């Protein structure tokens, strides 16, 4: 125990990098997911095709392969060296964004047709229809899966030590090398990862509740602070986030 307490600052530094990568990657993934997901619901074939290509390409290539490509191949190709952390965020964001785009697309398509028809009947423009009617309802539907994706993204950040970023996993390995204590060195990292995941789950659940409240619904998990502690839902339908 002393071992970990003494070295806590080092672990926290690593954890902070992990959190930064998670937040940066999530922000990028979110923007890409909303953009390409909405694009996938447009009736004209061209934007739909562009969205499909984005989704299939960046979902089909493993995040780590993308990351290696950004970190090692891109500098040779363009002569421009990305910062390692930035390359990591870019690869994670592009990869998870592709999963997210599918979630956004299917959530928008799942909004009852009558809602869209009513908006058309009221002579709403496309952007009014999206902003005022469709997206608020689709949003509540997206959030649970987004929650899973954020956790998956956080877990995927652990590979960045392979391109030289010193994150929580890298710290655990350094600790092990300098002390020879494999179990304790790694337990410290495992616990921190678990805690980060729990905070993310809680945050996403709060967002979910807010979205449902705004639509005048109760969250599937029920109301009250205790409902926030229910175990995280695993998306069994799609295996999303992988």
């Amino acid at each position, binding site marked *: 125990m002393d071992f970990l307490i003494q070295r806590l600052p080092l672990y926290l530094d690593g954890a902070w990098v992990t959190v930064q990568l998670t937040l940066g990657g999530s922000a990028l993934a979110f923007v890409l997911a909303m953009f390409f997901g909405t694009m996938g619901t447009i009736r004209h074939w061209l934007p739909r095709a562009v969205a499909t290509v984005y989704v299939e390409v960046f979902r089909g290539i493993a995040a780590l392969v993308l990351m290696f490509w950004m970190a090692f*191949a891109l500098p040779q190709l363009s002569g421009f060296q990305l910062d390692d952390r930035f390359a990591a965020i870019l690869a994670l964001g592009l990869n998870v964004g592709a999963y997210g785009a599918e979630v956004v697309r299917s959530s928008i398509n799942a909004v009852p047709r009558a809602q869209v028809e009513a908006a058309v009947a009221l002579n709403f423009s496309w952007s009014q229809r999206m902003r005022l009617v469709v997206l608020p309802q689709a949003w509540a539907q997206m959030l649970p899966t987004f929650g899973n994706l954020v956790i998956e993204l956080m877990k995927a950040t652990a590979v960045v030590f392979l391109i030289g970023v010193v994150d929580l996993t890298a710290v655990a390995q350094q600790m092990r090398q300098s002390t020879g204590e494999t179990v304790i060195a*790694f337990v410290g990292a*495992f616990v921190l990862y678990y805690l980060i995941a729990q905070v993310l789950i809680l945050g996403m659940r709060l967002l979910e509740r807010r979205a449902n409240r705004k639509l005048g619904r109760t969250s599937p998990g029920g109301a009250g602070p205790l409902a926030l502690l229910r175990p995280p839902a695993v998306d*069994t339908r*799609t*295996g999303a986030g992988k």
Partner: protein
Amino acid sequence: MYWDFEWTFQVMPDLLRGLGVTVQVTVFGYLIALSLGLLIAVVRRTPVVGAVLHAAMEFIRTTPLVIQLVFVFLLAPSTVSGMTVGIIVIGVHYAAYTAEVYRSGIEGVAKGQWEAARALSLPSHRTWGAIVLPQAIRKVIPALGNYLIAMFKDTPLLIAIGVAELLTQAQRIGSASFRVVEAYTVVGFLFLLVSVPSAILIRRLERRYAAV
């Protein structure tokens, strides 16, 4: 910077050997995930053991696979190969997911089916084997298929424990000859070559089983 086709052709056999390792890990790992996940899903219904299993699975699901791989690899005796460690760790990691899939399938089986089995006083292994699981598993086949693709895309993580899979091979070849652009781009294409057709296949499966 130009693309060296000749070089690309030369290293293709090495890369394809890497792909072979990747496929092996995926297949064996998936067999573990399928069988262990089913076992967990059934055992989870018992009171105390179930709660312990549930907590363990949540822990596995919320911590990164790569650090689990490195951790187990370091603790494993040196006689155990990285590939064996990789197969087992990936298999167990994904079992934590497939167990949830099976659980949703089992919970989706109508209550009347259980009651009918009871009414016929079927022994519990017959209830599970002949009534519940055939119905439960049929429904979750597409979801299980998704995890196969997911697992395939997680095999590059084995580079962390030095297994000669696709990405590791590309790194070795690429850095030896300074042709990393070709090496990593080909790896990307090989991934697409496998995952896009399998995604299409899963979508077909989904459509076929959705009606049931």
